[in-house]
């Protein structure tokens, strides 16, 4: 299901025009992004929790140059699905 399908489903449910639902969805997504960019975590009921954490720097090996390298720290996004979601989708056919 790609983004257009999501937009159409929402537009259909709420009887909004495609452009309107798209804009609203964009606003929602931007709010999520802003929070994550600041490192703030948030939970959406029945969906899950989004937060960030920082991976420490570490040594890695570059096989092309056959040399070790030092990777800098990195801040990444985590998502932990909520219980309800997990239960619902546990046994779905893939």
């Amino acid at each position, binding site marked *: 299901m790609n983004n257009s399908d999501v937009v159409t489903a929402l537009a259909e449910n709420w009887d909004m025009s495609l452009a309107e639902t798209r804009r609203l969805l964009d606003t929602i997504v931007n709010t999520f992004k802003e929070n994550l960019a600041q490192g703030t*975590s948030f939970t959406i009921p029945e969906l899950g929790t*989004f937060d960030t954490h*920082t991976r420490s720097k570490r040594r890695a090996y570059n096989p092309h140059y056959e040399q070790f390298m030092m990777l800098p720290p990195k801040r990444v996004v985590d998502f932990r*699905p909520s219980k309800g979601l997990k239960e619902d989708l546990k046994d779905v056919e893939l």
Partner: protein
Amino acid sequence: MSEKVTFQELIDSIAEQTNNSKKFTHDFLKDLVSVINSGLERDGSVNIAGLGKFKLRRMNEREGYNPQTGEKMTIEAHNKVVFKPYKGLRELVNAPYSDEDPKMIDEDETVASQEDIEDISEEEKVSQQPPSDEPAEVTDEEEEGFIPTGPPPTVKSDVEDSEDSTEEDRDTTGDQAPWDAGEDEEKEEEVKAEKKEQEDPFGISSSEEGKEADEDVVEYRPPDEEEQESSSLDQHLDKAKKEGKQETDEAVEQEQPEPEEEEVETEPEPAEEPEPVMTSDSGSKVSRDSYIPSFKKNQTPPWIWGAAAVIGLLVIVLAIWFFSSGNGADQQAEQSIASTQTQSEEVTEQPESQTTRPATSEEESVSESSESDSQSQSQSQSGTQTPGQSTAQENASNQPQQLQQNGTVTRSVARGQTLWGLAQKEYEDPYLWPWIYDANKASIRNPDIILVGQTLSIPVPDEANYGLSATDSLEVAVGYVETYRWYKNNGQENAKYYLWAAKIYDQNVFDHITQPIDEDDLAFANRVR
């Protein structure tokens, strides 16, 4: 993990930004969640534009332990929900660390220390210290001004650490990122190598000890090889990164000068040790490839400004040329279409307002305005524009809505609604109305006339952003060709402008048209481009 924001706060913020009620925003968000849920159930993956992709992954059956009883148990196969953020989000979140690149290091170097990284727990810090004392050679040098992470160094030459300890404190006040504090040893080596290159490129100055004694230990490289091979590129790179101060070096800039005493003291000792250890053949590889030049930290080379100015001038000249050559015809066509648009608005408003007061049948009002329409060459459909839209929205909610499988939305036409208005509402671009017309050719005979209550399938644009994908553009262009055809067959004068408009949306639309098009009109459409 540091701060949390509540769901309610999120809703409040979104509601404020979109001028919707909080209840509506709350319900909409809940609905979004259920859409994601059903999307995962149906397809196994859901993409949310700008955010990321939710996917279902299969976990096979495996053996585990019951944490309470300790006995073995089988964890049955199940799905798990996974979220992968898109690149934009990844980069946005990683912004604080974005200016740091992976750096090549020689094998013998240890994992240097870290400062102020969230992940390091107190226990880790404590546990690191005792092990580090164990190796005998390390004891002297690891005065703990820093806390090493990871397992105690298994490789020798922890020599560098002494350097770290002296420089750690100064780091935090400088421009360098905290995590770079541990890299001082590397930078010092770079600096040293540079200086050597400048002053002593051929290793003339006697013994290695003599060289070493000069400056900081810069890096682990066989000094003879490295001096000759390190490039000026490295110099550039290192200018911003290194911390050590060169006693005599003026060419290399520094960010943090350090007291020389400490350097001198610690130098001879550690300086000698690395020498015998450094035998890496990879030294030759290190020179060129190791340092990704990052001009971010350096001054931009002066010639770039000149190049940018030249390119800018070129762009301006080209733009002027294009506008001057294409402007005349474009404006003509656009104006004619726009003016007919406004004409029809004025003409239809009057009969519309008169007929809507008394309760006339909906079809009558539509057909009345359509007659006046057909006289004026217009793109607008029956009914008025803005007043029509507002009433249309009220009425549309009473009409049933359906979702088609093939990327369309079904809408019923409300009173006063036009294809133009419909396109404006759904796409925020009324000029896309031929797309709707083409998608409903079966039910729309005259593009100027749509009937209230008529069900139309509105094609959904593919792209996540507000532009049109290539296939969508092609469809719009074909729609314009169909409109042209109808107008031509029904004696409209300006039909050829629709052909011209078709070309705007897709250059090669005429290749896709099977039925022949009038030669003159085709020439007109092609010429004006």
